């Protein structure tokens, strides 16, 4: 029974599953997120633009809850007379590590074809037929182009998408063959859309496409000043905007806060809507209890059958999780889920919570590059970011989080802070290096505890993870091999290596 309960709870905290619209676990977080309201901020523009298309951008940190909000918007727009086609592009259509505009266009085509089966697919069938030579060269030899049907076309675009997503070599070939034909594909798709709009169900008057998960596209520098984000969202903006219906694309938050912000505003006609983090601290470093309470409510809604005290040893643990998440919902889910990994029976103890936090902290520690520590300290002190790629990288990696609130005059204040998991590792006296002692102190306590319980194998694992962390540090400090930090890192590394191996004979026993 107890194990079933833990399994159920564990699955309630799935960090990668957005909540469907109307889910009882949904919590309205507007009041702690700078009043961000997707139904009003994005939805109203669509509802109020019946005669013309809108193209809007939606940004926010990955895992902040955008998909949940977009699914809510989809349901709301459906109720208000819109036919909404929603898809998460990274699920079946593109590889976030290497994505280009054509991948998005093919994905849109596939999902629209699939969702609008009452429309006449002929323009797209003709386009495919015209491309048969190219497609045959791409090994789509089994397709009979002389008798193309809607289902075949859906399958073909589906195969193109899944190949683009999964097979890098084939991806390059597809792009090489089809990139020159994006304009004709867009035209054909628009013709299809126009026809579809005439065949929408009687209670629907507008067509909306929501393309989610594009914010996950990893930034890649193309040349000195440009990234793939700019290629997609700036250079190809006219094509992104070119769909003959309302469109919402998610965009990387790092692009929204780049020097390209004005370009985005000019091109898309409105500033991207950004979903901020839930404030758990105020800019002056005080705990923001209202935010913490909202996060606690969010947890409670997921485990509503049980009291929080059945799950957490005490309230302090729960609040510590909320604080350490930085108001980032996926982080909170991950932290709690990981704590479940360290217990055999409820409740989540202080120790299992700390293990979960330490593990997450180690991951963040590895994410930060050596020369970024000083930038983080700057952000921590100024609560602002500079218009620089390095800050954007940190924003993209969620090492820096964005928050918003309305001040007493009703003015929205946007501010930034270092992720709390990293904050504890920062060395505020010396901005050039991380404080390596924090993870070590925690690990030492756990290690000592495990030794006292004669759990040598587990102790060895902890020692190994700390050893690996210092090894990473040693590598990054190699260019400063005369420095105290390098010597320190080498020394600690060898110390933890020894501790890893020290009790091996007892492990074997």
């Amino acid at each position, binding site marked *: 029974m107890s194990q079933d309960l833990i399994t159920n709870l564990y699955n309630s905290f799935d960090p990668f599953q957005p909540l469907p619209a109307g889910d009882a676990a949904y919590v309205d977080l507007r009041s702690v997120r700078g009043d961000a309201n997707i139904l009003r901020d994005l939805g109203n523009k669509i509802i109020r633009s019946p005669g013309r298309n809108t193209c809007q951008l939606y940004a926010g940190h990955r895992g902040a809850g955008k998909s949940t909000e977009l699914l809510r918007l989809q349901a709301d727009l459906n109720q208000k007379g819109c036919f909404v086609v929603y898809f998460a592009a990274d699920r079946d259509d593109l590889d976030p590590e290497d994505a280009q505009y054509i991948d998005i266009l093919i994905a849109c085509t596939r999902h629209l074809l699939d969702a609008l089966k009452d429309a006449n697919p002929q323009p797209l069938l003709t386009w495919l037929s015209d491309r048969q030579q190219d497609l045959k060269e791409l090994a789509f030899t089994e397709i009979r182009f002389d008798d193309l049907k809607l289902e075949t076309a859906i399958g073909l675009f589906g195969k193109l998408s899944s190949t683009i997503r999964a097979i890098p070599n084939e991806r390059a070939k597809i792009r090489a063959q089809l990139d020159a034909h994006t304009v004709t594909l867009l035209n054909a798709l628009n013709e299809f859309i126009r026809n579809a709009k005439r065949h929408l169900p009687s209670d629907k008057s507008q067509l909306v496409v929501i393309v989610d998960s594009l914010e996950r596209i990893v930034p890649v520098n193309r040349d000195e000043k440009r990234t793939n984000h700019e290629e997609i969202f700036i250079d190809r903006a006219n094509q992104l905007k070119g769909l003959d219906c309302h469109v919402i694309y998610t965009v990387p938050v790092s692009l929204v806060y780049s020097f390209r912000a004005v370009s985005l505003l000019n091109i898309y006609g409105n500033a991207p809507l950004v979903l901020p983090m839930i404030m758990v601290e105020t800019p002056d470093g005080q705990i923001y209890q209202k935010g913490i309470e909202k996060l606690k409510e969010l947890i409670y809604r997921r485990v509503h059958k049980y009291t929080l005290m059945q799950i957490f040893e005490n309230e302090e643990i729960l609040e510590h999780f909320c604080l350490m998440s930085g108001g980032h919902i996926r982080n909170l889910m991950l932290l709690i889920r990981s704590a479940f990994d360290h217990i055999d029976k409820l409740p989540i103890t202080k120790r299992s919570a700390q293990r979960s936090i330490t593990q997450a902290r180690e991951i963040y520690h590895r994410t930060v590059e050596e020369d970024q520590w000083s930038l983080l300290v700057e952000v921590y002190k100024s609560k602002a970011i500079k218009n620089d790629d390095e800050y954007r990288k940190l924003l993209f990696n969620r090492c820096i989080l964005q928050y918003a609130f309305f001040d007493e005059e009703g003015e929205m204040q946007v501010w930034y802070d270092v992720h709390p998991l990293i904050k504890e590792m920062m060395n505020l006296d010396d901005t050039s290096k991380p404080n390596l*002692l924090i993870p070590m102190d925690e690990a030492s306590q756990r290690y000592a505890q495990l030794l006292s319980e004669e759990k040598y194998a587990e102790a060895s694992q902890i020692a190994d993870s700390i050893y690996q962390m210092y090894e990473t540090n040693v590598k990054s400090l190699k260019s400063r091999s005369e420095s105290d930090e390098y010597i320190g890192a080498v020394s600690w590394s060898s110390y933890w290596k*020894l501790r890893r191996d020290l009790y091996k004979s007892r492990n074997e026993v």
Partner: protein
Amino acid sequence: MEIKETLALVPTVIGSLKTIKETCDSLNAGFLPKNRQKLKDLQQQVKELEERVQSGFPQLASLTKGYADVSASVRVAKALSDKNHELLGFLQDTKFVYSLLIRIPGEMESNCAEVEKRITNLPETNTIELGQAKRTIATIRRDLDRLKQFTRIDPSEVKVNQSKEEARRLTGDIATQYSELDAILSSLLNRILENIGQAKL
């Protein structure tokens, strides 16, 4: 001969003794009137030898395991002392040194306790070496008590640096004492084995 080889011989010896005993039992003393007493004596000797080996073998096995446990614990304790000694030599950053000073004694103490416990668990013997081992442990404990004082020092640079040198000396001394302890234990084992050989256990 290695201990494990010696131990491997024991079952063979027991087996051979059994065979000799069976052979003696099967001999008809009537055919050996002059040597009847000698055969009787031989049977008695074989019986006694078998009893001694059989009672001594588990003791020897337990002794060997006990010794291996102590030896492993001593090596672990020495390795950690050596590493702490080395670290105190390398680390320059006061914060790092302070962090090390406050955490050194804990694990070193539990290692020492482990060694002590395992020595106590050795089969009871009354040897010079056991006395020496106990005295060495007492010295290590004294040094550990001194090390423990550094867990309460002021984290200022001057204090930390002063304590660092003293702690380094102490960890070095402790490592040396563990080396001595290892040698003492080795000699203790030899003496115990000799005793077994001479059936004085």
